[in-house]
């Protein structure tokens, strides 16, 4: 699927139940048009990973995800040899002679996300999630892969991409990424959505949620974000919470139900403790007033 304008891509994303703001649609559109990776940064829960899933779905592409963590190395990101299989083969060939090439053929290769993405026959969206968690050595290696879109396996030779995958990198900014990597990518910062968009997202993602409830939930979460919390809730939390409220059959919020369900919005005990009694009633009142007005 080829998109000819930002509007076209935006419409397609909407149909795939993802509501991007104009900035994100522009970033994704440019990533495709310029075939450059796009780096998405923002607080946890603003929909960075969801954006990649939605893009894969509208492109009819396969989503390949590489979750980064400290110590991530080539064996887990690119490929590894299937040792048990190699050993079995050695045993079986005990009588005859065995050449090294027989052991290091494609059938003994375990393909990890990066190799999968490069070597895929079908179109691919490659999501490199939380790149800031991987260490700097891996970042340097990734830079190489993203500039050439080829991978060299000493025993097999170089495998080049048949078609370049669309690449989305996400970062929670636990550390600053290397400049060289940033230069290679488009950069988009995703902030918390506007209240109207957040309501629209909730209504889209929580089927059957009453309009009033979605407006009050979004307004309440917005109030929470104004407090001094260890982890301010993202859109993901608003959706979870609206689902919980809807499942309880609520049409609107009050102090009691907020108290009972606060755990799906706030994930730290100290945050839950900070939003009690008067604070809680005050926020509920403010949210109800905002949703009514």
């Amino acid at each position, binding site marked *: 699927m080829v998109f000819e*304008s*930002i509007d076209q891509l935006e419409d397609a994303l909407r149909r795939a139940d993802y509501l991007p703001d*104009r*900035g994100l649609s*522009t*970033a994704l*559109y*440019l990533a495709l*048009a*310029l075939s*450059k990776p*796009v*780096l998405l*940064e923002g607080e946890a829960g603003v929909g960075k990973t969801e954006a990649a899933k939605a893009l894969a779905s509208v492109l009819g592409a396969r989503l390949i995800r590489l979750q980064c*963590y*400290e*110590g*991530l*190395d080539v064996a887990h990101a690119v490929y590894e*040899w299937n*040792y048990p299989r*190699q*050993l079995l083969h*050695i*045993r079986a*060939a*005990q009588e005859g002679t*065995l050449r*090294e090439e027989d*052991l290091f053929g494609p059938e003994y290769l375990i393909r990890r996300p990066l190799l999968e993405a490069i070597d895929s026959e079908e179109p691919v969206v490659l999501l490199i999630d939380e790149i800031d968690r991987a*260490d*700097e*050595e891996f970042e340097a290696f990734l830079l190489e892969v993203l500039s050439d879109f080829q991978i060299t396996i000493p025993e097999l030779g170089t495998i080049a991409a048949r078609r370049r995958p669309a690449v989305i990198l996400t970062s*929670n*900014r*636990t*550390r*600053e990424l290397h*400049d060289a990597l*940033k*230069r290679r*990518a*488009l*950069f*988009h*910062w995703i902030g918390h959505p506007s209240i109207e968009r957040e309501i629209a997202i909730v209504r889209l993602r929580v089927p059957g949620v009453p309009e009033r409830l979605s407006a009050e939930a979004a307004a309440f979460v917005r109030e929470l974000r104004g407090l*001094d919390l*260890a*982890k301010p809730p993202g859109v993901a939390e608003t959706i979870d919470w609206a689902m919980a409220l809807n499942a309880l059959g609520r049409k609107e919020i009050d102090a009691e139900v907020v108290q009972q369900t606060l755990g799906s919005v706030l994930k730290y005990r*100290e945050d839950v403790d900070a939003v009690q009694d008067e604070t809680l009633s005050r926020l509920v009142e403010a949210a109800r007033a905002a949703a009514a007005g």
Partner: protein
Amino acid sequence: MATGDAILGHVVTFGRVLHEAGLEIGPGRVADSLRALDAVDLARQEDVYFALRQTLVSRQDELDLFDRAFGAWFLRAPVLPPVRSRSGAEVETRVGQAPTDRLRRREEEGEKEDETGDPLELGASAQELLRDKDFSELTGDELRRLRELIARISRTRPQRHSRRRTADAHGDVLDVRRMIRRSLRAGGDPLDRPLRTRKEVPRKLVVLCDVSGSMDSYARALLLFLHAVVGTGRGVEAFAFGTRLSRLTSDLATRDPDAALARCTEAVVDWGSGTRIGASLREFNETWGRRALSRGAIVLIVSDGWEREDPELVGREMAKLARAAYAIVWVNPLKGNPQYQPLAGGMRAALPYVDRFLPGHNLRSLEELAAVLAGIERRHAA
């Protein structure tokens, strides 16, 4: 094409404006932005804005600068041109006089007195004396000698195991890939068992140094220590605080200690002011802790614990910090006095969350600190 040239001219000049405002704009970025503009509808201002922003900016903290420049350049909005963060005026209105200036004078005076002596050769007994002398009583000459000793003791950094493994004859895990390869030579029998072990890497170290009035006489010696620690390599972050927090990592990264200290003096806006430990810790937790700077790190706090405001806030923020950090070490120069008791409100509130509580008033205590940092174990529960 005429319009194309006009756009090119606009973008190149705009790139220069951003560059002057402190953004890193190379020719590659400008070329990308032109390609991006080519792909979007130029009549839609929002799309032009994002196309330029996404190709020219790569850090969230530069967005503000970009927005102002964009407003001024493309929208002709009446906004002030963006300026670099630190203006001369700000430096001049700094509260109080920087202790480094005062101490530098002390150092200069010392030099005059001591011109005949050999500054590098220090007898064993003199060195011993220097090691035990309180930082607040040092002469200028002693401060200079101290620098070398400090550089020597700060080299030991706490280590942690990385998840990455490297080949090691005494390792604990079989290197299967290598074993199979070698076994081929023996017809498939694994005669050789190559091993791998986890690599050791330095643990993150975050230093928060109190530069308020009450810490004045210790500030220079401790900054020298900070400078030496930052020089040990990656993963060290240094902050100074009085009434507010300033990040010093990049200022301390200069190799020459004098230049580094001069840059710190400029960066810290509240030398010799009062202390708001709780508020400073909160600022740290909010802006840096949230970015996981303190996660798994050794946090070293250097302060006398005199909180001018709310000791309860100190306790609350220390609790947050303790949850993220691997261990917290508190260095209090006052603890050098045998009669000292942690009675100051801020200190009392912080102590339950402190893993190691050490003095830091002389060189010997810094040596002790270096030893503690090198071998620290986590004491508090996760």
